[in-house]
């Protein structure tokens, strides 16, 4: 069948590299008219890179893009729209202060012959689009007042209004409740019936199973299952996404001792931690498992003094620990390697040395004057030990790869000799070599008797590198188990059910 009419869009051997990462490696994909195509893979597998290329946000380094069998170039986002590609990104691109009609026709407002916006036509056309989609939303309503689900539908109405032949949906249901998801799926099926090609990206495999016609699975930038090469059911997809040879990527050492270093009892905060209790042993890696929004990061923030505790106590080495802010936490020997190293971790105006010593300036100075020789010697030693690029000594850190940058953020806490380190998504967006380097660092730290709290959306990493795993649900730790007693599937399923639960609860 495919031979008769060429696919609407086709990628042939498309490659795209970022500094230190080959994000898309000879990716091929065919997107057909009237088909919902699932694009799946774990974080950092190259999905968003592919989407960005197709929506014209970036240009591929090599490879071909074919439109109805002919080689074309998508030169920019506007060009993509002109070619009938509409992208509904994860972050809404809706202007909350404008009306629904204005949002639908934003950038393309119907005007009268004097060049003035024709409001009658804006509202009438918007009403027509919404009616066609069988959505009951007033085009004159202010978009920000609608529910998140309705806003998502408005976002899709924008795509319908521009008569897109190809719609890309990136995590369209992340913020939706069950019946809103059902409404969205009905709409997608209707559009499919009208011949629209839909690329559907989602982490929620249960719903993928329900809606998609075919799937392409990416891993580490490569297509590991092309359309038709896998059954569309959760367990086949999971095993394809994860791959079988992962174990050797995790050089785990078990250094946990019996002594309890940190004891958290009944922690609660205003932003979602509820009665969370756990122990952290000397030399242990305690993984916090759970989905985004489960309260993992919030527990870390509470420990580190970013969010104030509304209840509960923390004991460090047997003594009660009162942490009012980050400064107290650092003085007590805690360290946080934040999730987003670009925004929260690095000083781009400093070279490696300034970044590494930033948390130790007090110890490095006498009467307020810095011992710059000690700084140079100490950071030079760390840069060598951690095999950070020697360029880091001369250049500001924005010139370095993500892996080098992450090592520098971790080196900061080696320099400050922190006792308890909280790693929030420490390997996000860095390549496999740098990941292994980070794992080896974790080993070196635990060997030296430091304790680590590890937060990661990468379930394999979490399972392989943790000694024990505390499963976080709704800001509470539902159970703490030895990492070897859990499987990847357990965690994926636990996460998936939690989303469904959370969604149902919200609806009630």
């Amino acid at each position, binding site marked *: 069948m495919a031979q008769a009419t060429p696919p609407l869009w086709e990628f042939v051997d498309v490659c795209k590299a*970022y500094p230190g*990462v080959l*994000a898309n490696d000879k990716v091929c994909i065919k997107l057909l008219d009237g088909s919902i195509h699932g694009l799946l893979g774990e974080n*950092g597998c*190259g999905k*968003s*890179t592919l989407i960005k290329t197709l929506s014209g946000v970036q240009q591929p380094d090599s490879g071909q893009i074919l439109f109805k069998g002919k080689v074309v170039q998508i030169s920019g986002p506007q060009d993509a729209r002109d070619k009938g590609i509409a992208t509904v990104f994860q972050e809404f691109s809706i202007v909350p202060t404008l009306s629904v009609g204005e949002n639908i026709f934003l950038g393309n407002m119907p005007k009268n012959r004097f060049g003035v916006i024709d409001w009658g036509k804006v509202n009438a056309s918007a009403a027509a689009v919404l009616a066609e989609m069988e959505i009951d939303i007033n085009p004159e309503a202010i978009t920000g007042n609608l529910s998140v689900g309705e806003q998502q539908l408005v976002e899709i109405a924008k795509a319908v209004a521009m008569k897109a032949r190809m719609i890309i949906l990136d995590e369209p249901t992340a913020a939706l409740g069950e019946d809103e998801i059902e409404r969205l799926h009905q709409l997608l099926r209707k559009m499919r019936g009208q011949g629209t090609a839909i690329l559907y990206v989602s982490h929620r495999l249960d719903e993928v199973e329900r809606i998609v016609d075919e799937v392409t699975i990416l891993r580490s930038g490569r297509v590991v299952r092309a359309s038709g090469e896998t059954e569309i059911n959760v367990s086949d997809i999971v095993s394809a996404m994860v791959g079988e040879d992962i174990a050797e990527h995790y050089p785990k050492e078990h250094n946990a001792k019996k002594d309890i270093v940190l004891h958290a009892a009944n922690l609660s905060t205003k932003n979602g931690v509820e009665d969370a209790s756990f122990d952290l042993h000397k030399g242990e890696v305690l993984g916090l498992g759970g989905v985004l929004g489960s309260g993992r990061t919030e527990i870390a923030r509470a420990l*580190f003094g970013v969010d104030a505790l509304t209840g509960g106590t923390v004991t460090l080495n047997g003594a009660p620990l009162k942490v009012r802010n*980050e*400064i107290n*936490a*650092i*003085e007590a020997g805690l360290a*946080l390697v*934040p999730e987003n190293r*670009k*925004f*929260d*971790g*690095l*000083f*781009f*105006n*400093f070279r490696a040395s*300034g970044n590494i010593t*930033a*948390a130790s*300036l*007090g110890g*490095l*100075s006498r009467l*307020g*004057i*810095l011992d*710059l020789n000690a700084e140079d010697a100490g950071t030079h030693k760390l840069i060598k030990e951690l095999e950070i690029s020697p360029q880091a000594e001369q250049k*500001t850190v*924005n*010139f370095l790869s*993500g892996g080098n940058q992450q090592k520098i953020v971790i080196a*900061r806490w080696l320099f400050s000799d922190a006792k308890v380190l909280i790693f929030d998504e420490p390997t*996000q*967006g*860095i390549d496999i070599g740098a990941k292994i380097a980070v794992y080896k660092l974790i080993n070196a730290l635990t060997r030296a008797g430091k304790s680590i709290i590890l937060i990661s959306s990468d379930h394999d990493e979490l399972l392989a590198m943790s000694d024990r795993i505390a499963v976080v649900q709704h800001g509470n730790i539902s159970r703490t188990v030895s990492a070897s007693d859990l499987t990847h599937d357990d965690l994926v399923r636990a996460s998936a059910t939690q989303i469904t639960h959370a969604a149902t609860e919200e609806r009630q």
Partner: protein
Amino acid sequence: MKRVFDSQLIGPFAAMVIVMLVVALTTDRFLSPGNLSNLSLQVSIVALIAIGSTIVIFAAGIDLSSGSMVALLTMILAQFLKVAGIPLLLAVPLILIVGGLLGLALGMITAYGRIPSFITTLAALIAFRGLALTFNNGSPIFSLDPALEPLFYGKIAGIPMPFFYLVFFYALASFMMNFTKLGREIYAVGGNPAAAVLTGINVRKVQTLTFVIAGFMTAVGAVLMSARLNSGSPNYGQTLELQAIAAAVVGGASLAGGRGNILATLMGAMTIVIVQNGLNLNAAPSSVQNIVLGAIILLAVGIDMWRTEISTLLARVLGRSDQSPQGAGTAKPALSKDN
């Protein structure tokens, strides 16, 4: 020494030398001892105030209040000397303390009150001028103290006093920025406040201290302003804050914070004053001077922003392949995720 005189000084230094050469070649009086000594007097007040303005900018703030604060402080100094009868030797340190306290107030409102420094100091720019007018029915106060003038016009070994103030305060500021914990923290806060919080730096305290320093340096400028005319006036220091910021910017300080060398601000101030001096010597009207000053500010920032393009162009013109710009004004990376 490498830390103090780094590559960030090359551009501002070259700019200063170029304008010097141009002015020296187009006028015959520029290099006369009288003119050079006059230059150091002219540059001193704005260059001293610019130390504070630059340090605030390093921490990603902005200080618009210094011009009005100069007016207010000259009036307070006049009150101290003429009304309260405080001796000069006590009045001057008191004014420096008052300047520091005003800076402390602005800094605390900004850092702890979470009001952007642009707004805090804009309000102060307006209010301080008004406050200055409340003294002496808004009229200047003359003949403050015969011992005041030598602070500005005095000479040691034939070198004007302001030269020594410049050397002293710039050396001190350069030492602070390059060799002390506070200096490093100022750069860190300006570079990435969120990261600074997570590394245990007391961001609010550091931000506040930059304003205390700015208030103190403004007070130094105010004392010299009073000494220069032996008077206090609510009209002193008009647009001085903008000249000080211009000196910082021409010296290559990034308004986004975290980048720049304090000594470059001195060169920036010199560049501006030399250009003004050259136009004066060539009898250009003040309207032209302002237009040229505006153009210099744009050019200085433009050269920094377009340095990659310029070096590519230069490489093409000169037929060289080496074109990588080093160090200083490196652009911040685009805010994109890794993947």
